[in-house]
Each structure stands twice: as C-alpha cells, then as structure tokens.
C-alpha cells in the first residue's frame, strides 16, 4: 500500500489547521474519546439546539490520522440535524469497514473519503474512527437510542 494515499496534503492540512481545535463558548454536549494503545485523546464539544448542531470543536492530542479525522468530521457535521449527522457517522464507519466504496460516498463524506484507505492499515483503523465513535455516543443519546 502506498502510504502517500493516506498522508496526503489534506491530512497534513487538517492536522495543522487550527480552526476546529478550540473550545466553544456554548457547550451543550461534551464527550471524551480515547485510544489507550496509541494515546489518541480527544474531547468533542457540541452546541446542539433544537436538534441542530449549531457548532462543534475539539481539543486533544494524538496522531495525525486521529486529529485529521476529527477535524474533517467537524467540518462535515456543522450545521446538520442530529439525524443527518448520524447518517454521516454510519456512512463513515461503513466505509472503514469496507461495506461502501469511496465512489458511493464521495458526496456524503467529501474530503473524508481519503481515509477509506485506512482499512489497509489495520493498526491505524482505531485512529480514524475515534472521533466518529465519540460523536456517535452523543448522537445515540440525543436520538434516544
């Protein structure tokens, strides 16, 4: 597998981008996610009002893949309804499991489809899905699941 498929410009950009790495002025939901094996550690902050994700941000530390994945996720879910965000979550996790192809998901996941290649790097799958699982915890509670 060609590593450059994963460590592409996009990841690099997202990893170094600071726009999603901050604390929100108003937080309705806060969720902590952690990968003990590599030490990825994020705290997701959400401002959800009337079933809509008004704003989202994160703080934490970890590898480039976990941090980039978190940042890309935040770009994708900001402004969405809880149900729409849940759909994206399922699309992303489905892509990593290899149940859906990148081409099918291009419109739904935008930049985040580049992480599809992670399925060829079993040691790093946990890094890519950390943010999405953390978000899923919040969404499930919100949807009463």
């Amino acid at each position, binding site marked *: 597998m060609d*590593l*450059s498929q994963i*460590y592409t410009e996009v990841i690099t950009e997202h*990893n170094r981008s600071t726009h999603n790495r901050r604390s929100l002025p108003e937080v309705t939901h806060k969720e902590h996610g952690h990968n003990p094996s*590599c*030490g990825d*550690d994020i705290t997701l902050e959400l401002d959800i009002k009337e079933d809509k994700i008004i704003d989202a941000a994160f703080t934490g*530390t*970890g590898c480039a893949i976990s941090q980039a994945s978190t940042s890309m996720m935040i770009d994708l879910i900001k402004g969405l309804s809880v149900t729409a965000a849940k759909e994206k979550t399922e699309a992303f996790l489905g892509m990593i499991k290899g149940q859906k192809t990148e081409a099918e998901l291009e419109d739904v996941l935008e930049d985040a489809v580049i992480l599809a290649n992670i399925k060829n*790097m079993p040691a790093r799958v946990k890094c890519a899905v950390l943010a999405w699982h953390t978000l899923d915890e919040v969404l499930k509670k919100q949807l009463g699941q």
Partner: protein
Amino acid sequence: MCENSEIRKLFPAIAENNGIIYFDNAASTQKPEIVLQKVAEYNRSGHANIHRGAYHWSVEATATYEMTRRKTAEFINAESPEQIVFTRGTTESINLIASSYGRSQIKEGDRIVVSLLEHHSNFVPWQQLALEKKAYLDFLNIDPAGNLIESEWDRVITPGVKLVAITMMSNVLGITTPIDKIIEKAHAVGAVVVVDAAQAIQHQKIDVRALDADFLAFSAHKCFGLTGTGVLYGKKELLESMPPYQFGGDMIEYVTKEKTTFAPLPEKFEAGTANIDGVIALSAAIDFIEEIGWGKIREIEQDLTGYAIQKMKMTDHVIIYGNPASMYEKGPVISFNIEGVHPHDVSSILDNVGIAVRSGHHCAQPLMKELAIQSAVRASFSIYNTKAEIDYFAEKLKEVRRWLGYGS
C-alpha cells in the same frame, strides 16, 4: 559484508526476510534455527505429558523438562533447581509473588517500594496489593535523564519497607539500574527484593547469588525462546514458606474429600499441564546464548547502540530519552520522538519502508508521565542487527517529517 553475518544466518526470520529491519527486540526476539529445531524434534519424536506416565515418552519428556530446570538454575547461578519455577512469563512470575508472598506477608501499614522505571507488570501488581492490604506504595524517583536518584534512597528505603520491586533494565530507556546497591539497601532494612530481569536477560550474565536477589523473573521470548514461557527464581526459604498460587493437577501430594496436601518445590507452583514446548525451547535458547557468549553479545550490542545514538543525535528534530552517565549503563534500547510528529505516525511511516519499531507508552505510563511525554518511538537492537540497518534507519528518520508536510 556485515560484522555479524554469521549470527544472522542462525535466525531464519532474519536470514530469509531481507527487506524487514526488525528493531523491536525489547518486545520480543526472533528465534534461532536451533530453538525451532529442538521444539520440532521433540514433537516429532513423540510428545507426552510430563510427571505422569510411566512409559518411555513421558519419562523422556520429564527428563528434558527437569534438565532444563537444572540448566536454567545454572544459567542464573541459583543454588538448586527447585528454586526455578516455570511460569507463563515475567508477568505471571511477578503476579505469583504478589499473590502468594505478597498476600500472605504484607500487612496494613507496611510499605512497598517500586521504581518509576517499571513496566506495568512490575508496578500494577504492587499497587493493587497495596490497595488491597492498605499498605503504602512509595517510589524510587528518576531524574530528567532517566537515572534513579540515589540520594533519595536513604529517605525512601527505611525500616517498615517490606518489599522493593525493581527492574534491572528499563524497557523504555534501556538504562540499567544499580541493582546490587538497591538490594543491599533493601536488605539492610529487612525488605525482600523482587527483580524484574525481563529486559536484562538477553544482554548480560545474571548471577542471583552474587546479587543476593530474593526473587527474580524473566520471559523466554525476550532471550530467543518462545512466548508463553517464563521463569521465577526465589530463595528457597521464601518459596517454601509461600502458599500455592494456583490449584490443580501436578501441584498436589494427596487429595481427599476433605483436604489436600501440596507437592514440594517447585511443583507446588506449577499447577496444570506445563508448557513443555516452551521449556524445551528455553533449554535450546540458553545453549545458544552460551555458545555465542556474553562477551560477544555485549560487544555487538554496545557497538550498535553507540552507533545508533551517534547517528540519531546528528539528525535534526530527534529527541532521545534516557541518558545514563556512561554508555556502559545503556542497553540496546533507544526511545525517541521526532518533533512535530506523533510516535504512532513515525512507526507507520517507518513500517512503510520496512523498519519495525514500536510506538506508544511501552507499558510504562508512570515513566512516561515522569518524562512528561505521552508516548515515544522505540528502536531496540539484538545481536543480528547491523550498522547497515542503522544507517538505513537514520536515513529514513530524516524523511519522516516530510510526510507530515514539514519542509525538513
């Protein structure tokens, strides 16, 4: 031609896998052909359970198993074979001590001392024992270079300390500890000392009698043997006074409906069918080490370690952890970070070019906290590694930051 090409030929996984540079020897070593052969030979010529059958195969297996016990005793200079208990590994050996000796001897208010260099397997059992018994857990601290702070010992190792648990070599920093001095101090206040030799075992001759160690543990898979096999050494009077750790077959003398009497040492601590394959492999691994010789092993390892450190120090953005006063106190284990790149990314990037290094907390979270880092990359060498491999590694280290979009 590399300096140890003859040694490389003795390891099929090294000789036949050109392209993979294995630098994770602190986690587990590759196995020499002779070890693989001995295990295969035993199984091909007729395997049987030990200590049970009166028939030929069982008698043979028992003889080999007990011969290995004698060989292991000699290997670490124990007085007698019954002081060698075969376990699943270092972790089980230490848990055995904590469960059996610890639970029966440690009382409320007693003190247990551990160092901050410890692997979780020589840390958590003592922490949990202290919690269970309402005993105190005290620490031998390290300085920023990773060396134990000797000047504090008189304050920490005082009467009331019942047990000191200490590694001979840090699995993260490669630093060896002044184990003899610690044992002397501990004995002066009446404490017993549990020595974790998991890292030290593949690098140096260990003499439990010269050290006066009370307990010592190591794993076969870190010294060219198989996984799932370990050793616990203990002083005879301590082992004899300890209750069994697990109950079952092999460890009993008489069993009636009402009660059981236990077998003498060492069977008392070897409940259930033993890992015969693993013990036979350990026998071959010990022969292998003695054939190569400690002098040669030490020479190759010191040479590689010094060379690697020198190369890494010349590489920009590389931070090395653990700097002992002299290179003589450093085993072939180097933990480092590359500025701006998470260790997990470093190991994926190096894996992509065929270099196997470890990243993470290395089962030593208290130590990572002391070093004020969350994780690190670790390169660790063995006798089959070469300077040419280190050259390649150093070249590739220089490229790591570019993958993450840095200019250099």
